[in-house]
């Protein structure tokens, strides 16, 4: 028994560690679907506030940005407060024009020592993240789009 267990322990001793050497050697683990920092395409946004109304954490507020925005007459754009955001992605789902998408630039990248810098204004969201990233969560993930349910009698 004891020898067997020792053998088992040795096998684990020789294995590669499971932990990642973040942040110096390896980036955090992400996949094709990881939801993390948003990216805002300001030319697509129509200022409809659907994202603000969909946010369960009240993380989104609308900001006025001066400039030429043919699609956005009110000139308001969403900004995300990352000290509140839960990365649920409901705002991306709610956006009618696919102006808001999410990248896999995770919260490990967004770590900061200064709490007052966690607010991302529309302009900061429109700028792609500095490090390596890919656009992961767009409305394409909801393809084929959900159909209305078949009619049936009764129900709860």
């Amino acid at each position: 028994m004891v020898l067997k267990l020792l053998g088992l322990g040795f096998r684990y001793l020789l294995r590669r560690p499971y932990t990642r050497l973040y942040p110096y050697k390896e980036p955090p683990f992400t996949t094709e679907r990881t939801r993390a920092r948003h990216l805002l395409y300001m030319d697509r946004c129509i200022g409809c506030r659907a994202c603000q109304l969909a946010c369960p954490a009240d993380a989104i507020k609308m900001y006025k940005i001066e400039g030429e925005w043919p699609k956005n007459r009110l000139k308001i754009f969403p900004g995300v407060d990352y000290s509140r955001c839960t990365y649920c992605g409901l705002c991306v789902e709610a956006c009618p024009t696919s102006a808001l998408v999410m990248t896999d630039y995770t919260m490990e990248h967004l770590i900061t020592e200064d709490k007052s810098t966690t607010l991302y204004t529309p302009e900061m969201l429109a700028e792609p993240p500095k490090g390596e990233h890919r656009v992961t969560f767009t409305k394409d993930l909801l393809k084929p789009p959900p159909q209305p349910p078949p009619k049936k009698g009764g129900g709860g």
Partner: protein
Amino acid sequence: MRKLQVFLGPQHPGAPGNVAFLLTLDGERILDVDLIPGFLHRGFEKMMEYRRWDMDLVMSARICVEDPDHVELSYTHAMDQIFGVDPPERAKYARTIVAEFSRLASHLLWMMHFAGPVAARYATSWAIAAREEVLKWFDYVAGHRIYHHYIYPGGVRWNLPKDLKERTLQVLDRVEGLVRDMERGFFLHPVFQRRARDVGRLKASDAVRLGATGPVLRGSGVAHDIRKALKYDAYGMVDFEIPKGEYGDAYDRAMVRLREMYVSIGIIRQAVQQIPEEGPYRWRLPMALPPGEGVGRVESARGEFMTHIVSTTEKPGGRPLEPYRIKFRGPTMAHLTTVLKHIVHNEEITVADFPVVVGSLDPCPPDIDR
């Protein structure tokens, strides 16, 4: 006899999560235990009344951190009943797979919590390694490691990836290897057996009477499982057994959880083979919530989880978007109040045994507080 009152927790390693106990001691023996909850009360039930039903789903996952998908699943079942929809076939399998992975992750985290107080630190790290594989799988399917928001009223939130079968089977092989090693290195280890045998005995009749559910109930020898009893989602279509214990002591409960991990792996293996390749994955539901009532009962990793949702037309602001009242019933309240009191009153439990007893009940205090 001098009685001593000691406040245990909420940071004690034997009391995982944010809960405290008030112990009444006579020397080393525990005479009585009182639960002190409330450290994690966030008022979710009230917050949900202020928010839209789809936001509530995001919130519901946070009720039990370790096993979020079953909370979402029970919420979703109740919502499905209110909307009067039956999810598509593909979504039923997807829900089953995700729920079983969640059970796996939760049991592995319990292993970590449990092996710590028993002083088997090596098992702790093995369990976390295996859980890491599961969390990576979640990242790959649902987009996040801990809170997935993948199970959604009307189906699942988005389609499963194309290479689901191969990837899932790979992950399962790796997890199963680790669990087998844990079984040999920890569960069958004589030191652990001596530590957990005959500690915290609970008879079958008492378990039912006191309201125990899940592995605690099954560890006492009652083969009751909502998955089998109600056959919700795809559980009617897969073949699985319900592991149960004999004596109802801490060791039996631990072994039930170990065998449940194998059962979960078996269920997922069958489900990824049977899942239909094509077909819708989600019905689009209207934004407005119809009046109605729904009860969602699922077998979570810790026991029976129930969500009761009432939606009426009597809304204060007249918005038919928020549910009128949501009630969550988690399994932990019974385990940490009636069951724990019963064990302590009927058996000589010392302070040193207490972490083993509490650990074997696998508490998740947030679902008491909510």
